[in-house]
């Protein structure tokens, strides 16, 4: 190895590394704007692919399904369209499982691989990435950007800034419109916005998202992760010694020291203290201080940067790598499926997924409420029988009219009146109707006896067979 290090080409590379990083490494103390250096490598590439997830978010509202918007949260009509499934507020219990699932996935993934969500998927990270890339195109590399920051306002600075803000504003606008598009017809929304006829709610939401995106991704950036997002603060309780985090291998790297041209200093470890890892960090963390820092979003770009440097100085890659605390200590990591936390999180997640899938596939076509008339509880009829009245509130959740038959049982000789042989329920509507039951007093054993209504569907596409308990009162 020592011979290779004397290679003049490598020495040249070392010089270059120091030159590149020296000017713009910055440990984030919150006061200065971070201008991360561009980096390429394995983890950077992964990040590029995770963008696609959010491209999906932007395009999805325009997808049509069965002649209507595929995903639509129709708040005024209290319906949630998910492809061919329509979810009503009556089925909202599934939302709790969705929330449990998301929480468990977050906990589980954090237990396995730390804040990978932050580093790769979080909209704050992705949008900031986009905004920084635009900044890079318009204002140049970090050194140039810093120069421009410090420069007095002149024609060039104003032109560059305005251009940058304009592109940022476009992205922010699309972000806002996309969000609104999930709640209203996406195509009509564009028309409404450009003819200035959108609803006030649309404007307010749009403005909120526009300002939020512009401010958070353009200016606050890592400050959002550091001071606004609670995840950074609670991550340490979700991470254990088995979680793999981007870790600086201090045993290999320390003591760090400057590699000099053509000289190997045996007293130094592998870290050549070039500070590239700090320079590329989007949140301005020095990963060498600790693997678990509140500022670290675990995106792995420091790994890419360090690997690059290690290659140039002919040292093995992986001075910084995804590693668990145990691995760094030389202990083998137990298999993922043998770790109790992972098993528990996975089990709860699996249960939630099952509940949601079963729920979605078995959404009852009707939501029925039967209310016994309270005032009066009963009325006496001319043939001496007792009559009880019930209000039926049946919401037909299907897009077709549904024919049902209602029958009652529980008392000998009970007679039902008020509805015909079949009741036709209008699609997506709830129209209450009254049903009366009549029974002779001697058949009603108690002041209040249970009775049962059965609602049966009549040869429709949807199978309906529901049974509801209610009561029958007598004097």
């Amino acid at each position, binding site marked *: 190895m020592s011979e290779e290090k004397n290679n003049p080409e490598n020495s040249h590379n070392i010089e270059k590394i120091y030159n590149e990083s020296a000017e713009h490494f910055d440990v984030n103390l919150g006061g200065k704007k971070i201008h991360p250096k561009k980096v390429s490598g394995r983890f950077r590439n992964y990040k590029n692919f995770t963008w696609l997830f959010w491209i999906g978010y932007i395009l999805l509202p325009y997808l049509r399904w069965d002649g209507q918007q595929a995903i639509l949260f129709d708040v005024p009509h209290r319906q949630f369209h998910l492809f061919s499934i329509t979810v009503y507020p009556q089925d909202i219990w599934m939302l709790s499982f969705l929330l449990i699932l998301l929480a468990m996935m977050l906990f589980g993934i954090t237990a396995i691989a730390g804040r990978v969500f932050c580093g790769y998927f979080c909209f704050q990270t992705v949008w900031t990435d986009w905004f920084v890339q635009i900044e890079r195109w318009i204002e140049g590399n970090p050194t140039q950007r810093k120069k421009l920051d410090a420069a007095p306002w002149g024609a060039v600075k104003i032109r560059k800034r305005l251009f940058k803000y304009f592109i940022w504003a476009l992205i922010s606008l699309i972000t806002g419109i996309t969000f609104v598009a999930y709640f209203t017809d996406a195509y009509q929304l564009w028309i409404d916005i450009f003819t200035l006829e959108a609803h006030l709610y649309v404007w307010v939401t749009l403005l909120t998202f526009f300002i939020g995106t512009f401010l958070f991704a353009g200016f606050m950036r890592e400050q959002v992760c550091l001071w606004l997002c609670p995840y950074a603060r609670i991550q340490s309780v979700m991470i254990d010694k088995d979680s793999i985090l981007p870790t600086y291998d201090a045993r290999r790297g320390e003591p760090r020291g400057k590699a000099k041209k053509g000289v190997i200093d045996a007293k130094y470890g592998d870290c050549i203290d070039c500070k590239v890892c700090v320079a590329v960090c989007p949140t301005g963390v020095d990963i060498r201080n600790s693997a678990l820092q509140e500022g670290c979003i675990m995106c792995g770009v420091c790994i890419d940067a360090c690997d690059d440097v290690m290659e140039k100085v002919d040292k093995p890659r992986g001075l910084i790598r995804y590693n668990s605390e145990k691995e760094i200590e030389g202990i083998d990591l137990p298999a993922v499926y043998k770790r109790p936390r992972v098993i528990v999180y996975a089990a709860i997640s699996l249960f939630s997924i099952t509940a949601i899938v079963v729920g979605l596939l078995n959404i009852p076509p009707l939501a029925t409420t039967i209310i016994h008339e309270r005032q009066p509880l009963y*009325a*006496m009829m*001319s043939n*001496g029988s007792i*009559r009880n009245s019930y209000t039926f509130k049946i919401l037909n959740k299907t897009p077709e009219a549904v024919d049902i038959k209602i029958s009652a049982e529980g008392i000998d000789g009970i007679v039902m*009146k008020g509805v015909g042989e079949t009741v036709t329920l209008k699609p997506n509507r709830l*129209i209450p109707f009254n049903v009366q039951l009549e029974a002779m007093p001697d058949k009603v054993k108690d002041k209040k006896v249970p009775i049962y209504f059965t609602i049966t569907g009549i040869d429709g596409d949807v199978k309906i067979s529901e049974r509801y308990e209610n009561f029958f009162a007598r004097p």
Partner: protein
Amino acid sequence: MAEKNSQNQVPDTGHEWDGIRELTNPPPRWWTIAFYLSAIWVVVYFIIYPSIPLATDHTKGVIGWTAIGEYKEAVAKNDAIRQPYLDKLETMSAQEIINDPEMLNFANSSTKALFGDNCAACHGSNGQGIAGMFPVLLDDDWLFGGTVSDIATSIASGRKGNMPAHDLDDAQINLLTDFVIAASTGQATQEGWDAYQAAGCFACHGADAKGNKWMGSANLTDAIWRFGSDRESVMRTIKYGVNQDGVDGTQNGVMPAFGDKLSENDIKLLTVKVWSLGGGQSE
């Protein structure tokens, strides 16, 4: 942050208690900004909304917002939703409304106040009536008929039953009372039927004692009692009649006419309501 705020570098106010110094750190910038924004908002609010009380009045604010205005707007908004339905009800006949479940539901819900104002005082909030005093509207027994047109007439023109007082001896009254009570469960004796014929009751109540809706005479063979089912009440009805001027102890039962008080449309809606309470008959 930690280094920037390091205690040793920050000047203090000179106050020190038990080694704890009061530093001159400014409050966080976001807090300061929010503070000044709030102060600006106070001024903006005072300009926009009614705010400063004057001797007899108050400042109105530039957008002219008032609480009652907001209320009226909300009512107008609600009315705008109801109006097409109300207009449609106006054009429909009572029978058409009854045949349309959606309009029937709307009519019954929107007629609640009308029913409460005009009918509920006697007939109860849901037509439950008061036993012996005011008729129950929920049952299937009608003195003057339960078809849509009968009910409409009853509401518009009112009703006043008329049963003469019967100056009979006690034995006959007792016999008739027994007969009427027994007839309600279908157990009347031949002796009773004979007394019924002899007293001339059939003239109004019919040969089969099932009453006559054109006269408003009660059906004596059903289980519904207009003036109470106990022996004493029945006897009183036979003895002193119903609505007899100058007869002490006569039963009173008058339905006032609403034709002058309510519009034709309101009467139609109330007809629908009463008909659909459960006892409505087809024409």
